[in-house]
């Protein structure tokens, strides 16, 4: 066992000396390696952060949302329907919600206008998402002017900005009072966008949903579980795009590594020949070369992962925001909560180190099995 350790130590010493001797040659590969780990880790860490944020938000969402359908399309829900739902056994509370989208030509984006459940702003006043406020250059006390459904301008006084912790969803949010909302969109009293349900026993959500459908067949019932899955699917899909791009990068990197490993210079061939002539067998040279790959990978991975971690959690992931948070102009600036997840580290290591090992293994083996008498044949 001690012999084994001493031998590995000797091999590592030699490897380190070799890496130092060929600094310039290894630096290019190391940089490419670090960049690859950095990009891949950024995408994964960022996507995970987003998913977690979304899940946190959904924890506060109602268990069931009921929408009225007319000819298969979402329609406004009359207040009487809310009462018919409230009667159902197992329903703890029902409330009509008011929300809608408005295209704001000034920032070229869709805003979400919503009447909050509690603490709605007074008439003529709104609360704004921080991103929207920044884009519009608005501070509390300023006036937000929007054109209503009839094309008439409406002026709202900005009362407050929304807490930026939940900026992922609140970026494009405008909170306003019920009367203002109805006037702005021209929605008559007694009509709601949809209904939010709380159920008595969360385990019976499915049963309650079935009862709602039985009583009001012209509705669609969406559970929180389904919403969460949709969110996840959307984020995963968005994460899938850069991952596709990165898989091309991964292949390019593997090609580079392969090229570097197989394009042995005459000098390196000579050196391996010397080692073999001096009494190193193929296994020793192979082990040294594998150590070289392992040390390079470890260094690249630590650097790349640390950089990605800082990039995502402290710099706000400026590289990926437009892609991952949607194509909207209104992408928010926010900080994800830092997290270290071992399974992510393992999978990232597999994703980056394995292609390197796979690409270099055969060239390394070829180098290691050069004939020991090669140095004598000059």
């Amino acid at each position, binding site marked *: 066992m001690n012999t084994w350790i001493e031998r590995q130590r000797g091999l590592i010493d030699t490897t380190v000396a070799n890496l130092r001797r060929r600094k310039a040659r290894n630096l290019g590969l190391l940089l490419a390696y670090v960049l690859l780990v950095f990009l891949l880790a950024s995408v994964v860490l960022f996507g995970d952060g987003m998913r977690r944020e979304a899940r946190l938000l959904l924890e506060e969402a109602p268990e069931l949302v009921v929408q009225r359908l007319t000819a298969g399309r979402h329609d406004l829900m009359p207040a009487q329907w809310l009462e018919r739902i409230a009667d159902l056994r197992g329903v703890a509370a029902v409330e009509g919600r008011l929300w809608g989208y408005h295209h704001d030509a000034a920032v070229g984006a869709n805003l979400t206008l919503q009447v909050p459940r509690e603490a709605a702003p007074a008439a003529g006043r709104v609360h704004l998402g921080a991103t929207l406020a920044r884009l519009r250059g608005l501070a509390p006390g300023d006036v937000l002017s929007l054109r209503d459904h009839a094309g008439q301008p409406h002026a709202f006084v900005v009362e407050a900005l929304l807490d930026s912790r939940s900026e992922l969803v609140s970026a494009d949010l405008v909170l306003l009072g019920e009367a203002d909302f109805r006037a702005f969109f021209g929605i008559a009293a007694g009509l709601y966008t949809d209904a939010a349900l709380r159920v008595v026993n969360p385990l019976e959500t499915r049963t309650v949903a079935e009862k709602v459908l039985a009583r009001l067949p012209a509705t669609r019932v969406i559970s929180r579980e389904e919403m969460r899955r949709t969110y*996840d699917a959307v984020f995963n899909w968005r994460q899938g795009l850069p991952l596709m791009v990165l898989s091309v990068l991964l292949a390019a990197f593997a090609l580079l590594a392969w090229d570097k490993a197989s394009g042995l210079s005459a000098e390196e061939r000579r050196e391996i020949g010397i080692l073999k002539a001096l009494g190193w067998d193929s*296994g020793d040279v192979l082990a040294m070369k594998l150590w070289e790959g392992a040390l390079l990978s470890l260094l690249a991975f630590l650097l790349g992962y640390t950089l990605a971690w800082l990039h995502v959690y402290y710099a706000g992931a400026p590289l990926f925001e437009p892609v991952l948070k949607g194509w909207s102009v209104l992408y928010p600036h926010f900080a994800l909560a830092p997290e270290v997840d071992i399974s992510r580290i393992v*999978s990232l290591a597999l994703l980056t180190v394995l292609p390197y090992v796979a690409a270099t293994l055969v060239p390394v083996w070829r180098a*290691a099995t050069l004939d020991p008498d090669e140095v004598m044949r000059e």
Partner: protein
Amino acid sequence: MIFQPAALALALLLASSLNALGLAVAGLFALRMLRHWHPDIGSEAQIALERRTHLVSTLVVLSLLLSLPMLALFTHTADAMAPFFAGAMCAVGSLKANAWGLPALAVMLVGFFLAAAWLVLHRLDTRGWDQPLLLAKYRLLLLLAPLALAQAALLWLYFGGLKAEVITSCCGSLFGPAATGTLAELSALPEAIARPLFFLTLALTLAAGATLLVRGRLGRAFGVLAGLNFVVALAAIVAFIAPHIYEQPHHHCPFCLLQAEHGYAGWLLYPLLFLGTAAGLGAGLAAGVRAQSLHNEAPRLAAALARIAVAALASFGAAVSFYLWRSNLVM
């Protein structure tokens, strides 16, 4: 295909595909090796074959190094995916979301033990001047290669066939009073039988291991017992260890042990059990080698492996005893 969690699934697919590719190359080489190996001829073809053995052994070593993180990652991924399948509570639900999950896991396990056995043979073979285990080694490789291909295929089928809307079953349907099948019968095994059986097998295994270490005897028996102990230990986990950890008499699932609510008990128990079993089987294998050129080397390796196996299995037994002692459950 749902990419959840994307990076984990991709890493697993990449790893298993490269693993399959490497072992397929190794398997094809094994065929050539078995036909054309003539160590007493210094021909170019023979030298070329000998060179290639270095590539093949490196491939299998890397494959074994890969198999443990893959096994851990796969179980973790299945566990992490559970919230996305209606009805799933833990890894079982995700694994059962289509027909390929549980077979993939089983193939991974078998592959891990076989790769470990191969490495024991390889290590011994390279230390005998006449390479006495060469043919055995390459025959075993013919078994490993298709297994790696099957593993990759199963993982592709599994991840490729996942659909979020599938309603799967929770672990209660596999390991519970309401379930049927072998696994259900295991969970129905009364603790009064399972508990003494488990501790008896473990004690016998450890005793055989100690005999191997002290007297250099009972090596092969130790290997067999380590294998038997693995089966009994898995059955015992389902029958009574898991319920004690959950403190619920009817919760027998061996996968929920991996979750945070149960203090990640599985991440302590399983690695110890797997490591101990692999080392124990390897010790038995090494002790069974009778080649003249290895008369020093084989017992030495057997002892080294037995030391690891005994330490791991004893820790496993200690950990189980601790969980049982701490549990308030009376079954």
